[in-house]
């Protein structure tokens, strides 16, 4: 299978912050790859480097056989970009904007078909400024597709949407996949990655921490069991508790969660430890882990919405 994208050892730092820290992955033609991770994981920076919007510090990148850092006009003719925050001349109508931007491409799509694809037929001649946020995001999508691109980048296509608007956008995006285009999308919604992607690369702290099909990720999870409980005091010696476990455990305040492929042994260790110390484990539960738990264990649950660097993640 031909590779649309090949990334090896990609690095990018903003001052002391290593936003992208040795990332490698491939995307084959016709594949939908979701780069999943929390804000600040390095997703947007990675994608912006692939688009040619940002320079890299190190590593090898090939996109459609070209180095995006020196891609030029011919390279941009073959890709479609839907940025997280890119404006459009809002006093134009959707149709006017598509005509204007489409003129620069060698093989633009039919504007009427495109307007239909993003479900803006009724609004095509209204000024963009009068459209709702969700509708504008679909104008963005249409503008990203106007050049009939072989490869499409979608940077957090549904961030800030309500669940209904998100569903609608997912329908539009999955329509694209049926056209055989290669798509790279970033998201911090696990559900979105699962719904849209053939493959998911999970990023955290500038690295790819897992890479596989949603089913593979799910399988790796389903064998795991989650043991959770509350400690009576904050200052219990966690290392002594967690170190000998087969699974992975971590504490957040008094709450301790352990993901383990060997629940019987680990539970025995935990309860023995508690009995030895004469403490009660409040809210002790043992249940099978879901994808969310594995995702959180991969990216580190303490890594919540912090913005970092100029790349918004």
């Amino acid at each position, binding site marked *: 299978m031909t590779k649309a994208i090949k990334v090896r050892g990609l690095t990018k730092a903003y001052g002391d912050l290593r936003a992208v820290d040795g990332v490698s992955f491939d995307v084959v033609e016709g594949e939908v790859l979701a780069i999943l991770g929390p804000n600040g994981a390095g997703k947007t920076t990675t994608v912006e480097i692939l688009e040619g919007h940002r320079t890299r510090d190190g590593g090898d990148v090939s996109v459609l056989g070209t180095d995006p850092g020196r891609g030029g006009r011919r390279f941009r003719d073959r890709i479609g970009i839907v*940025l997280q925050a890119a404006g459009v001349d809002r006093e134009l109508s959707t149709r006017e904007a598509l005509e204007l931007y489409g*003129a*620069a*491409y060698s093989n*633009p799509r039919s504007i009427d078909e495109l307007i239909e694809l993003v479900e803006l037929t009724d609004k095509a001649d209204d000024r963009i400024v009068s459209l709702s946020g969700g509708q504008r995001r679909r104008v963005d999508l249409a503008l990203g597709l106007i050049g009939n691109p072989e490869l499409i980048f979608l940077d957090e296509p549904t961030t800030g949407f309500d669940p209904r608007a998100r569903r609608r956008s997912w329908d539009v995006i999955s329509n694209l996949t049926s056209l055989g285009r290669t798509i790279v999308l970033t998201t911090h919604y696990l559900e979105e990655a699962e719904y849209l992607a053939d493959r998911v690369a999970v990023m955290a702290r500038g690295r790819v921490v897992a890479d596989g099909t949603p089913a593979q990720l799910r399988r790796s999870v389903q064998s795991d069991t989650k043991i959770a409980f509350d400690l009576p005091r904050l200052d219990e010696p966690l290392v002594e508790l967690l170190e000998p476990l087969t699974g992975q455990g971590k504490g957040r305040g008094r709450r301790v969660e352990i993901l383990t492929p060997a629940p019987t042994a680990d539970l025995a260790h935990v309860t023995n430890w508690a009995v030895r110390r004469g403490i009660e484990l409040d809210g002790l539960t043992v249940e099978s882990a879901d994808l969310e738990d594995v995702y959180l264990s991969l990216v580190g649950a303490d890594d919540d919405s912090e913005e970092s660097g100029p790349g918004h993640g």
Partner: protein
Amino acid sequence: MTPRNRGPVMADGLGAGRMSLVVRHIRAQNRIFWRVPIGAFFALFLPVMMLVLFVALFGSDAYTTEYGEVSRAQFYTPALAVFAVASATFTNLAINLSIRRDEGILRRVRGTPLPPWIYLAGVVGSAVYMALLGTVAVVTLGVVAYGVNIELAKLPAMLLALVFGATTFATWGVALAALTRTAAAAPAVANAVILPLAFVSNVFVSFEGDPPTWLLLVGDTFPLRHFVISFGEAMSPFSEAPALLPERLGVLVAWTVVGVLVASRKFRWEPAVGASSARSRRNGQPG
């Protein structure tokens, strides 16, 4: 309208030809201009209204000016025509380009095969077009309503002054957008520059009698006064054709050169960090 398959194939074999893209973008920017009333107000309506007001307020009696004893209308017509040019180019470009940068429009352009300079040429070209419209409106009103002097033999001097002046102020509009960090600051900075300058540049008042040297010095340092006097001289009833003022046009050229240097070194296509993306993101929320 839009070519479905490969349009006229250019040297680089991509899309429509460069000139046709420039024209397309000038047209689109003109359309946007008419749809945002505020720009049209300052560039076109305000100078015309000021001409009517000033003549009504001060009457048509003789006025001592750089060009000799002329009517108020004869003084204000070229001055306000030039002011229309400065508003349409300098002020509007500084504001519009920083808004387009803040909103991420310039950033979007950089991700498409459209050469960024063509987008810029569309915005600048449209501003110059509006400057010409403003000039025509003010001069026509002056000639038709107030009998202001205009001579065929000096028309080339008027056009030359206009071309040099519009180029200088368009260049500095782009340069100012390059020097301002955010769109919020642009209108304030542009007006803080152009309004005081207008007072020392023969736009609103002429330096009668003996003005303080420092006022003259300030006026002669910046390009506006040279632009106003070049254009006014070409309309003056006392000047001899061709009524060209090469030294003053030379000052405009010098300012243009500096403006081009500043603009080409400092112009950014990416929004400033923090200032803008918050706003663009808000725009991305569902209504």
